[in-house]
């Protein structure tokens, strides 16, 4: 067993525990944006697509890299676009007395 594999396993396990801690604190009001935001985060697979494209030398390799890049690009941009669109709808009371407004901006 190599050190690199061990450190990969450490990262994986610790990230799951950190994820558990952080995500249990998200209120159910935000569960849909949360799922969309985590959707966007797994768009990190685009790094894998970049690396796959950089190593491709055969036709099969290029086809796999192309589809991977297409999927990952859709995942990243769509995920963040949708999350932001939903979150901007979550507002405080719209009828704005001036002092509430400043509180919201700070």
């Amino acid at each position: 067993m190599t050190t690199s594999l061990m450190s990969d396993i450490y990262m994986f396990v610790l990230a799951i525990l950190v994820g558990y801690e952080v995500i249990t604190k998200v209120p159910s009001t935000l569960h849909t944006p949360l799922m969309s935001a985590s959707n966007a985060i797994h768009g990190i697979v685009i790094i894998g697509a970049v690396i796959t494209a950089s190593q491709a030398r055969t036709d099969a390799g290029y086809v796999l890299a192309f589809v991977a890049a297409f999927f990952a690009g859709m995942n990243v941009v769509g995920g963040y676009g949708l999350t932001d669109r939903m979150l901007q709808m979550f507002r405080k009371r719209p009828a704005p007395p001036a002092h509430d407004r400043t509180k919201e901006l700070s």
Partner: protein
Amino acid sequence: MNAVTIAVDLAYLLAAAGFVVALHLMNSPATARKGSRLSWLGMIVAVAAALTSVIHGGTITTTGWIVLSVGGVGGAAAGLVMARRVKMTDVPQVVSIFNAVGGGAAALVAAGDFVRLAGDGGISGRVMIATVLDIIVGPVTFSGSLIAAGKLQGWVSSRPVVFPGARLITAALTVVGVGASCYLLAGHDSIAMLILVVCAALAFGVTMTMPIGGADMPVVVALLNSFTGIAVAIAGFVIDNGGLIIGGALVGASGGILTVLMARAMNRSVISVMLGGFGTGDSGPATGPAAVGAGASIRRISAEDAAIQLAYASKVIIVPGYGLAAAQAQHEAAELAALLQEHATVFFAIHPVAGRMPGHMNVLLAEANVPYTDLKEMDAANPEFPTADVALVVGANDVTNPAARRPGNPVSGMPILNVDQAKSVIVIKRSMGHGYAGIDNELYIDPKTGMFFSDAKSGLAEIIASVKALVAS
């Protein structure tokens, strides 16, 4: 390790830290958008680092650049259009499609690595194990998510599709997939076997999702979200990249938590959801006559009656359910709430499974300009019911059934909104039909409950008109 490699690795670490902080900021609607932007920033840093590393390494061919940029930009454009255009009621389908492509991309990254190294025996044991896992989990997520999206969109029957021999096919696919996987794990780097595993996994994703009913989709979408995260993390093991491992693990945890929360709120176990076949409608006709029988003791009211009760109440709790989302009545609900707020305390009490994915109802109401401070979670709302003058239930059924507090029926133990504790109750519903649990709702025969039979959208519109007339006179 040279300077560039170190800088690139630090950039991945920065991105991963950004993701964690971003998820932390999602603990309040006030900071959530900041979090989402931070996460986006982290993603840009990570992609810039990956490109820097590739340029520095100088291994990428011109064709590689073309493939990467055309594919990436094309996919990004498609994703952007979907994110911009989707109606808020259709968000679950789109989230499901993004799950599919994420899982698909993870499997392709692993397959790309395999195809490159196949033939010269250069695949180490660890890479082979990770690759095999990824070409199973990735394609299962891909086809499973597409079927789930199809069911949510109505392109695939949302009823549980069960046919004779389905279990046999699933079992056969499992045997083929596991057999071919073992062959690969034994150290044979055969591309034919890789394709066989991928095909078996794709078919398995279909047979796994088809028997699951539309009502269980919140659980399934959350579970597939978790699978995608795991697939991406495994891809990180294949190419030894910490960014993918951490990002994927965070999503795996998030999807896992939501799966368990949803299943608990629906009073189901994750296993029973996956086995499928629930709510096939078989129980509907059988208990139908009982519903008609109960109809004798219910109290029907009109829009005017409802409006009078609401107009003179000083505290109103609105309980929206799936029927409100299905009728797209969120704007009417928001308008009524705003109208009543001129003289009363009004808020929405939202059950975790209201809508078609976790937290979906909140997004629909936020879109209709309901401030998030008026959206209360079940635990916060329940103590408020005893002091409420009117609880207005719109298109919600099982989640308000007091029978859940007693053992011995299909909803026993299910967390419910304590609507029956309000001083009076108004239910807007199309008919006396059953919810997914297929049983009568005792709330409807409670003497303090008035039933207003109508579609959620037109019913609310009538009540708004009547309230306005009352206030004006």
